[in-house]
């Protein structure tokens, strides 16, 4: 058997890899502290009149009833996530069966799986590509704190909240689909309390 000489392939330049490595190192250096959860607005009291409240309620109803998911399924939890989309648990009931392949059209990122430093710039980029308003559910122990891989510090990010702000945490390794659905309902409750029209800003004009 004749073996074709190795080196017939096109290999990318090592400079490209170095640049990518530099991005990762920079991100690693800059994200040692967790980003606080973006839920301070929940406690704020805003003056609302009936009209605005109704409009708010309508907008929030629309937003929470059609949360389209961005694709970000690094690891094990992805299969519980797909199982939740599957016939038995059926996230489609909440209008969530559409997995938008393009993050620009997605509202919700379910981070199902361990995040590594090599992956972190990509996750942040996906998050940045998503259009406002957007939400993040950290699914599983690895997504919350690094889980059982947390001690492999050289590769594993201890929690997605080092990279992106997280709205809801769903613990478990992996969480059962029921737990994920509960987490989604928590998020829906959270969205329902959101004030979209800020009266003070309107008055200031």
């Amino acid at each position: 058997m004749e073996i074709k000489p190795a080196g017939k392939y096109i290999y990318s330049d090592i400079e490209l890899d170095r640049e990518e490595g530099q991005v990762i190192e920079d991100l690693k250096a800059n994200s040692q502290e967790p980003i606080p959860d973006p839920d301070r607005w929940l406690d704020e009291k805003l003056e609302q009149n009936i009209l605005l409240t109704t409009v708010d309620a309508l907008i929030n109803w629309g937003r929470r009833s059609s949360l389209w998911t961005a694709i970000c399924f690094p690891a094990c939890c992805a299969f519980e996530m797909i199982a939740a989309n599957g016939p038995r648990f059926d996230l489609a009931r909440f209008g969530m069966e559409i997995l938008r392949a393009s993050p620009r059209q997605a509202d919700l990122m379910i981070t199902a799986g361990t995040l590594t430093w090599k992956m972190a710039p990509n996750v942040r980029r996906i998050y940045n590509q998503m259009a406002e308003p957007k939400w993040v559910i950290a699914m599983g122990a690895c997504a919350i704190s690094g889980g059982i891989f947390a001690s492999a510090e050289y590769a594993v990010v201890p929690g997605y909240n080092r990279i992106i702000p997280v709205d809801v945490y769903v613990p478990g390794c992996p969480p059962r689909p029921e737990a994920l659905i509960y987490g989604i309902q928590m998020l829906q409750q959270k969205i329902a309390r959101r004030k979209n029209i800020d009266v003070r800003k309107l008055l200031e004009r």
Partner: protein
Amino acid sequence: MATGELSIYNLVKFQAIPPDWPGGFWWHWLFFTVVVIGFVLTMVMGVIYIERRGMGRMQSRLGPNRTGPFGLLQPVADAIKVLLKENIVPVAADKIVHWLAPVIAFAPALMIFAVIPFENGALLADLNIGILYVVAISSVSTVGIFMAGWGSSNKYSLLGAMRNVAAVVSYEIPLVLAIVGVVLIAGSLSLNQMVVAQDIPFILLQPLGFLLFFTAGCAEINRSPFDLMEADSEIVAGFHTEYSGMKFAMFYLVEYAEAVAISAIITTLFLGGWRGPLLPPWLWFIVKVMLVFFAMVWTRTTLPRIRIDQLMAFAWKFLLPMSLLNLFITALQVLADWPTQLIWAMIIVNFAVMAIIILIWSRFFFRLGWGRIEV
């Protein structure tokens, strides 16, 4: 009934609006344009609901059922959400092209409905060249889609747009040839006249033409199994990868408005349009459109997607010869005056011809897996 220049007076029969309103018939045009847009938007919401629920049931799931009764308000929720999302324009994008693309894609999808009869004579403009207008207009969307692919400056978008252009250029030919068969039998290019001529639905007289039109139509509007331009397992979201917010909503709308348009044309050309017993004509029309759309959902959930070179080969090596044969046979029959004299013989003969031609051609002349065409 006079066609063409007096078309607006046909509307009078449909809706009790006096023709002597101030400002002549411009009022009516405006009014009915709004009605048509409303109809299209409602239909799009309806078909989105049908698709998501129907697909859910076919995949042994439930589908959306939390918003309103039976989840009927799901498309409303989607619309509210999508319209209020942030609009992102990539830095590298060609801003003007990126901005114009959804508009150019959206307008033709609406314009098709101007010539589709909802009831006898009830249409915005009863053009005597209605079907030619449809053929001409429906291709314009492609320009918008190609602009979207180019303007996004994204490789996936560009690949998706290129695929779409290739598909539309190829499938336009069998599509038009399939229409010509109907035109020969009906003896008119006006869509309303075609419906009036259908004492029995033309699907019985033109079974092969119907299949060709359905297939080519699916390819033209990129429904599965020809949904290569937004094949999400290959090129992410295709030409609208970089679109978000309202512009994405436009593309989403175009996708389904085109599906409704093709369903409506199929209904008009082959299924007898608004004609039917008992129910009012417009209801018949809507029911038929929904049925055709349901068939599209069915193919989408069942069939895998074909490859780009197979898509081309299928158009040129299978659909084109089929449609030419179909046209030839139909022309002979029309020449022999079968459609008026020997209508039952024509039905039987055409079904037999369809079965034999498809069988022979797919057995001996063309298989999807045979060979490749470089595109």
